[in-house]
């Protein structure tokens, strides 16, 4: 628990009429880039708000950098830099004044970092925040977060309004100045390509629950799509095998482990294995998250039922 940057146990957050977070147990190691993925409304921002003390969990508990969420919140905030989804700052203050406002809170604040990043990002330091474009606002917000000297960066959709060049620069900074220093980055996003680039770990959340939490490398090493055609193939699954789609004799499986063995077994049963292919993050995301939506004709109800029961 103490070696983890973020740990939660059955975190629940109930808003009137909706369980935004529904039994979430996160394990985010230190010194990694952790991609927190999910659709809009999956519970990402609610989770982050709880971790940062902006909201209170209905049930469950958690720690951030070893400190208890809620009880030791100030200690967490001293060591955590947060980039919120809205990225809103005081309109009448300039970035320079915002730096002046923020630096006093953090003993590890780095003025060199401010100078370096303000130059790299080309931020107009003396224009009031209200008059900045969306891209410049994001950059100013990132500047404050990066200069804080934090052990953990929590980024909620950090790329809003950033053009590809700035985004690329930002990723380089994250690698060189944060991850290489042994600090932790927690990125919440539905921009899969940005996350896939830099992430070591992936946590995939849907309807307030974790569908998957693993090293990205392991996922890519072990997860496979298997498309087959044949009769009497398995319709229900083990925890490792999901039936994604079915059309008559054709089936598409998502296999989480030992894909070759499963494919071989299907072959011995006389099926034609058309393809055993590795998955990119986008395909994994869609495959796991789309289970509740109709994907093919026929067997829709059974598929959804079988898949969700195999995941629970």
């Amino acid at each position, binding site marked *: 628990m103490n070696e983890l940057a973020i740990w939660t146990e059955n975190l629940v957050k109930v808003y009137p009429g909706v369980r935004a977070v529904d039994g979430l147990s996160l394990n985010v190691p230190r010194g990694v880039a952790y991609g927190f993925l999910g659709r809009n409304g999956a519970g990402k921002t609610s989770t982050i*708000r709880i971790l*940062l*003390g*902006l*909201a*209170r969990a209905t049930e469950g508990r958690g720690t951030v950098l070893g400190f208890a969420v809620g009880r030791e919140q*100030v*200690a967490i*905030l*001293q060591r*955590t830099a*947060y980039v*919120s989804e*809205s990225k*809103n*700052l*005081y*309109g009448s*203050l300039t970035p320079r004044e915002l730096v*002046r*406002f*923020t630096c*006093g*809170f*953090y003993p590890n604040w780095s003025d060199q970092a401010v100078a370096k990043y303000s130059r790299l990002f080309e931020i107009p330091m003396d224009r009031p925040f209200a008059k900045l474009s969306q891209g410049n606002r994001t950059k100013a917000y990132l500047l404050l977060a990066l200069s804080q000297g934090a052990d953990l960066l929590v980024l909620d959709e950090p790329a809003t309004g950033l053009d590809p060049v700035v985004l690329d620069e930002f990723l380089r900074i994250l690698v060189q100045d944060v991850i290489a220093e042994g600090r932790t980055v927690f990125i919440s996003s539905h921009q899969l390509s940005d996350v896939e680039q830099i992430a070591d770990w992936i946590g995939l959340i849907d309807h307030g629950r974790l569908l998957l939490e693993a090293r990205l490398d392991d996922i890519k090493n072990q997860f496979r799509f298997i498309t087959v055609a044949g009769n009497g193939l398995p319709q229900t699954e083990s925890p490792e095998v999901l039936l994604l789609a079915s059309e008559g004799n054709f089936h598409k499986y998502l296999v989480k482990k030992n894909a070759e063995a499963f494919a071989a077994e299907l072959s011995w049963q006389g099926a034609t294995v058309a393809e055993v292919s590795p998955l990119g993050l986008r395909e994994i995301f869609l495959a796991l998250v789309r289970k509740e939506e109709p994907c093919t004709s026929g067997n829709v109800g059974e598929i959804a039922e079988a898949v969700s029961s195999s995941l629970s």
Partner: protein
Amino acid sequence: MYIWKCWRDSRSRFIVPVIALPALCVFFTYMEFKFAFGMIGAGPPSSVSQTWSHATSFVLGGVASLFTLLFGLVMGASGPGEEFKERTADFLLVRPRRRSYWVWTGWSVGVLELSVMAFLAVAATFGTLTYLTGHVQTWRPLATAVPLAIGGAVAYGLTYFMTVVARNGQQGLSYGFGIFFIDLLLPVAASYYRNVSLPSVLGFMLGACKWVAGASRAFPSGSLVLWTAIALALPFAAQLVLERAEV
């Protein structure tokens, strides 16, 4: 840091009262002196002391008190409550401080400003009296800065608390004004119709100034304790609300 920001944000709402209140005091002191003197006529020192006493009661206890309350109400529409309207609450509340820090720091800056305002008003009155009557009759009027500041803190704290509750300065101000008028009129009505005496902050300020002026024997210790307690309870209530607030 945050103190600097509170000061910056309050500047525009501070500059008018800090000039207007002393100016009003000078004006009314002059009026008081002119017409009372005219009525009494140039006479023995007792009339000078009466002038001083009357100015303390009327100008400070009446005019300055009322305007301090009004200004206090307006100045209180600030602080952490406004952060929600500005949509910067998720920035501020993630800075490593307890929520009580935000509440009390903002409140302290405002109350300090009010105290400066009250003292300047009192000093202006004192100075005007000295100038007009030619000498310092008594140093006591300076003490009225205390009930003025306390009363101002109550008004400020009221709007400040309402702003945190409503998460909006303008709404907080509306509620604050509403409650203030109730506190202004209800005791008057209760006393007139039912002969019941209810505590009123203006009544307290007036009573305290009268005591300082020597126009009344009774030191309003009960009111002093009560309104000081209320002045401190309001920001405390704001703290309780902010601690439970979700962004």
